[in-house]
């Protein structure tokens, strides 16, 4: 017996079970594809681009469907999804920083070749 009406905010929450089952299956397929990238020992740019593509597809499906984002209001979507874009700036900066560190470690912390003048750090 349903004595009380479910609150109006529930009305947008229910979707046919089939949607979740299809996306679930798709996630398994994408996970298998990701694993195969390593199993077949793909290397370099092909490996990295496939790993990234499968990762982003899985993440997108989980956020949009399982976490219900694609049915939420735009205000909430923007509040949650835009701030993480700042992280791309952090990643860019740190990538450049680590490249700098690597170069300097190579220059100052590795033994000089015999016919080169030794480099003295200032």
């Amino acid at each position: 017996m349903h004595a009380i009406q479910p609150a109006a905010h529930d009305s947008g929450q229910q979707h046919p079970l089939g949607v979740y089952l299809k996306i679930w299956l798709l996630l398994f397929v994408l996970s298998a594809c990701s694993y195969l990238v390593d199993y077949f020992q793909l290397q370099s740019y092909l490996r990295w681009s496939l790993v990234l593509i499968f990762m982003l597809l899985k993440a997108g499906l989980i956020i949009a469907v399982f976490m219900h984002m694609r049915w939420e209001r735009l205000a909430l979507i923007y509040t949650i999804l835009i701030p993480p874009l700042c992280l791309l700036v952090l990643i860019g900066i740190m990538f450049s920083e680590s490249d700098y560190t690597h170069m300097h470690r190579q220059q100052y912390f590795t033994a000089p070749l015999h016919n080169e003048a030794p480099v003295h750090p200032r």
Partner: protein
Amino acid sequence: MTEIESQRIHAAVPEGWRGATHDWSADKQAYAVPWGKAMMWFFLLSDTFVFSCFLTSYMTVRSSTLTAWPNPSEVFALTIAGHSIPLVLIAIMTFVLISSSGTMALAVNYAYRRDRRRTVQLMAATALLGACFVGMQAFEWTKLILEGVRPWSNPFGAAQFGATFFMITGFHGLHVSAGVIYLAIVAAKVGRGRYEQSGDYSIVEIAGLYWHFVDLVWVFIFAFFYLW
């Protein structure tokens, strides 16, 4: 949010861009979702930054070492029946976590249908799968520690590997463990009929959001740490 207020909000509310400006400029409530759901989203946003900081520092450390980084295919391989299979445990762990996300999504669906029995069963299945995941991660840690991986050195390659591995998977495993406990508590409350009178089962969806986040983080860890 009361029945009347939510009805007024959903009555003639614009969608899209105009909807966004309408929501943000509203004088009483910005987000037309239950308070608990909005707060869980905000918490997950902050947790996204925490994990992103860890993964970014892992990237920084890995790309600045002169010593070669250990090969994950080899480090995380298991020998089954005499064959060394790369990343098999990690593949199983991913399978387990995706399965748990599926059972969680189904649980939320049944909760909104007010089918308490199915909801509790599915939440229990989710929690059990999560516990399996943590068990496997613990096994992985034990194996690596026995092989000599420490936060400060390891026999496989760059010395920083251990620190980043234990930090990232440790924080993730902690989140999974907390999620298992959280799900068990909510499932028990649903089972006892705690939400039957109000009819408001959004608590299951809120717990589901946390659980899907834990799976989401694993998707990124799997890609960047194990497959890269």
